[in-house]
Each structure stands twice: as structure tokens, then as C-alpha cells.
């Protein structure tokens, strides 16, 4: 039986006395786009880092609904985390070069093909500092995609971008998700813009998932606390 959901059960994390995640349960449908929203400093990135294994959860399990181990997750960092002393080509080649036994020509073919898919052919020999922020984002995505992950975790991918670039990043994520078929779990502050590309939205509040549903459900029937959170954002758009 193939898996259809990623099951997060009882995920807890605290720093000192401060409880950040309090026994969180969440079912993430595979192949879809789930966005986690919430107030600043509420623990959204902590949640994502626990899924990625960058932080060790105090309690809880992450499994697939058929009992298989969790597939490989790639992670896109807010600031891209590209190696600034490596060229774009070497950044994208890094996970393959370090993890797989491939010949130089095969490596070159794979990286070149990936760069072409993300319209980065002309940037291959450049360093991250020599390309635009949007291109850096695409390089980070190329590096995440080259190992063919089933799940990609996005940590506020539009931080610091102007509205036009923000939409182009969202478009890019939607387009490549359709092209490559990976599952997206994204943390975002861009409410309500992010709803356009999300299949599900989860609202993290006081260490718990206080709402989980489709964007339309969220907008039509939000709980009162979520309504308070959403109203100023919706007003600023209208």
C-alpha cells in the first residue's frame, strides 16, 4: 500500500521553560501543498526544523500512514543557505557529489539538466553573490530538487522580497510542484497571498494546530482567534 499522508503525532518541543510545540498532531497529504501560518515567534520554523531533523523534538513521532519510514525531505532556508564560495553549478552538484557514486560526466549532465529546467543555464559559472535574489532562490530549489526529494520544506521563502518577486516565487513553487510532483510543507507570513497556492492551511497558535483546512474553509469559517489574526491582513489587501 502506498502512503498518502505524513502523520505528525504528539510533536513537542520546549526551550527551557518555554513550551513552543505542545503535542502537535497534523496529517499532511502527500503530493499537496500545506502551509503553516501563525504569529511571529510562535514556533513555525521550529516545527519545520523538527520535521527536517535540524532540531530534536522532545516527544512525538513523524511517520507515513502506511508505516514506511519518512522519505527524504529537502529544506529551503529563508536566506537560501547557498555556499557563497562555490559557483551555482557546484552548489547544485554538492548533494549528488557527496551522497551518490556518479561519474563526472553523469554529474555534469544531471546538474546541467536541472539548471536548464529552472532557467539557470547562464548562471552556472557565477557565484551566488553575482546573481539576483530570485535566481538565488531558484538555485536553492535546484539544489533541493536534484536529489529528487518527495517532500520539500520551505521556511518563509518570500522573506524580504518585494510584492512582485513574492508572487514570482509563489508561481515558481506552484509550477515546479506540478512539474516534479513533490509535497510542499511551507511556513509563510504572506497571508492571504499564500492561500492561492496552498491546498491546506494549518494555523499554529499557543503550541497547537488551532485550525486545519482548505483556504476556502479558513476564509469562510475561521475560529474567532484566527479571525482576529486574519482581519488586519485581509483589510490591508482590500
Amino acid at each position: 500500500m502506498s502512503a498518502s499522508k505524513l502523520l505528525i503525532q504528539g510533536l513537542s518541543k520546549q526551550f527551557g521553560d518555554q513550551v513552543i510545540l505542545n503535542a502537535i498532531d497534523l496529517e499532511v497529504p502527500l503530493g499537496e501543498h500545506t502551509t503553516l501560518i501563525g504569529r511571529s515567534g510562535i514556533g513555525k520554523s521550529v516545527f519545520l526544523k523538527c520535521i527536517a531533523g535540524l532540531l530534536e523534538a522532545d516527544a512525538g513521532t513523524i511517520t507515513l500512514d502506511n508505516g514506511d519510514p519518512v522519505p527524504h525531505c529537502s529544506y529551503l532556508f529563508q536566506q537560501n543557505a547557498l555556499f557563497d564560495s562555490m559557483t551555482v553549478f557546484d552548489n547544485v552538484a554538492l548533494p549528488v557529489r557527496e551522497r551518490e557514486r556518479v561519474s563526472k560526466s553523469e554529474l555534469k549532465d544531471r546538474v546541467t539538466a536541472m539548471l536548464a529546467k529552472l532557467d539557470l543555464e547562464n548562471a552556472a559559472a557565477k557565484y551566488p553573490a553575482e546573481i539576483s535574489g530570485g535566481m538565488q532562490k531558484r538555485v536553492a530549489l535546484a539544489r533541493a530538487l536534484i536529489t529528487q526529494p518527495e517532500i520539500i520544506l520551505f521556511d518563509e521563502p518570500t522573506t524580504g522580497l518585494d510584492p512582485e518577486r513574492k508572487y514570482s516565487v509563489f508561481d515558481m513553487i506552484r509550477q515546479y510542484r506540478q512539474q516534479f510532483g513533490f509535497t510542499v510543507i511551507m511556513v509563510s507570513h504572506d497571508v492571504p497571498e499564500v492561500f492561492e497556492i496552498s491546498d491546506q492551511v494549518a494555523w499554529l497558535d499557543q503550541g497547537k494546530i488551532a485550525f486545519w483546512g482548505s483556504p476556502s474553509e479558513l476564509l469562510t469559517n475561521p475560529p474567532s482567534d484566527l479571525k482576529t489574526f486574519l482581519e488586519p491582513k485581509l483589510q490591508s489587501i482590500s
Partner: protein
Amino acid sequence: MIRKLGQAGIGAVAELGQLTVFTLHSLVSLFGQRNAGEKLIRAVYEIGVRCVPIVLIVGLFTGLVLGLQLYYVLSNFSSETLLGQAVSLTTILEIGPVFTAIMIVGQAGSALSAELGIQRNAEQIDALQTMRIQSLGFLVSPRLWAALICFPILTAFFDWVAIWGGHLTGVELLGVDHGAYWNRLYDEVTFTHVRDGFIKAISFGFLTTAICAFNGYFTNRLSDVPGARGVSQTTTRAVVYSSIVILASDYIITSFLLQT
């Protein structure tokens, strides 16, 4: 007051334990690495080849000064002919390993600490983990092994340059007999002296590279402030601790070597 002292003591012991685990883990991590040879060669270049000019300059001036000072001390006892022996033993046993280590820490150790600190702040180390690349094996292990290779070689180079520096002052400028200088050196410098110098060089290389790497790698935990100032703080800390460790371990190693 007592509580604070106790907390500081426990903190220091805990950090020492973390450093030990970090170092041992780093040391063995090279064996699981792809392209380990390539990484090691790059690290040897960074630690070894790039430090040659500074070791050459410091070694030369150290030898020149040693030749000068020891000549005037020995001439008080009409023993100028012992200059070759005095310069070579001082250099091989003490000054060579200690000065070389301090020079490498100043150049390569500080660079290593700062580089790892910046990589930590830029989340590049976390990125390696999400790519399932062992960060210690990728970033630290080649440098640690390279230090074990480069420190003795650079120390030997320093010794050679300093002995020639002593020759330049003693023989060429102050008129000590050329044959006496080299004969005393050949007669008195034994394999044991050279071995002891290398033991020190390898120990210093291991300890200082581990300290510098540890401080950079955990800059987020070890500094009081985040960002660039945090990296600056841990880099300074790495260089200061390494220098102290060089001198303290020199005393301890010398005590052991003199006993045997």
C-alpha cells in the same frame, strides 16, 4: 559567588567534554567521506602551503635573533663555538614547535574558526544536514587530518630556516667558525630531539585545530551575541585559547618527555 564559581566550573567541564566528542567524531568522519583525498589535499594547501611565507619570515628572524643573543651569552664564557648546538636545540625542542603553532593558529586557525562561524550563521551547516551530508566530515575532518600532516612539516621547515638564520648572524656577521657551528649541531642534535619536537608539533596541531574548529562550528552557542560580532568573538576566543593551550601543553609534554 560560590554558586557562580560552581556553575562556571561545570560549564567548563561540559564544554571540554563537548570538545572531546566533537574532535573524536570529526577525526573518524573522514573515513566515510566521498572524495576524501581531494578534500584533504585542499585542506593541506589551506593550512600548509598558505602558511609557508609567514613561517619562513618568522623562522628567519627568530634564528637571526637567537644567533645574536646566544652569541653574546656564550661569548661571556668564551664558548662561542657552542652556538650551533645552542641555536639548533633551542629551536628544535622549543621555539620551532611553539612559534610555528602560534603562527599557524594566527593564519589558518583564525580563518577556519571565522569560516565555520559564518557558515553556521548563514545556515550552511544546517543545509548540509538537510542534504544528509555529514557536516563534521565535510568541513572539519579534512582540516584536522591536514593539521596532523602540516604542523610537523612546517615545524621542520621553521627549524631549518631558524638554524640558517642563526648561522647567518653567528657565522657570517659575528665570525663564529663555520665548521664549529655545523659540527656542534651534528654532534649534539640526536634523533630523540627531533622526535620530541615532532611530538609537540603534532600535539599542538591536533589541539589548536580542534579548538578553532569547535569555536567556529558552535559560534551560535559559544558567543554572547549573534551575527558578525558573535563570529568575531568566537574567532578571538579560538586564537586566545589555542595560544594558551600551546604554551600549557608545551610545559606538560616537555615534563613527560624529560622523564622518559
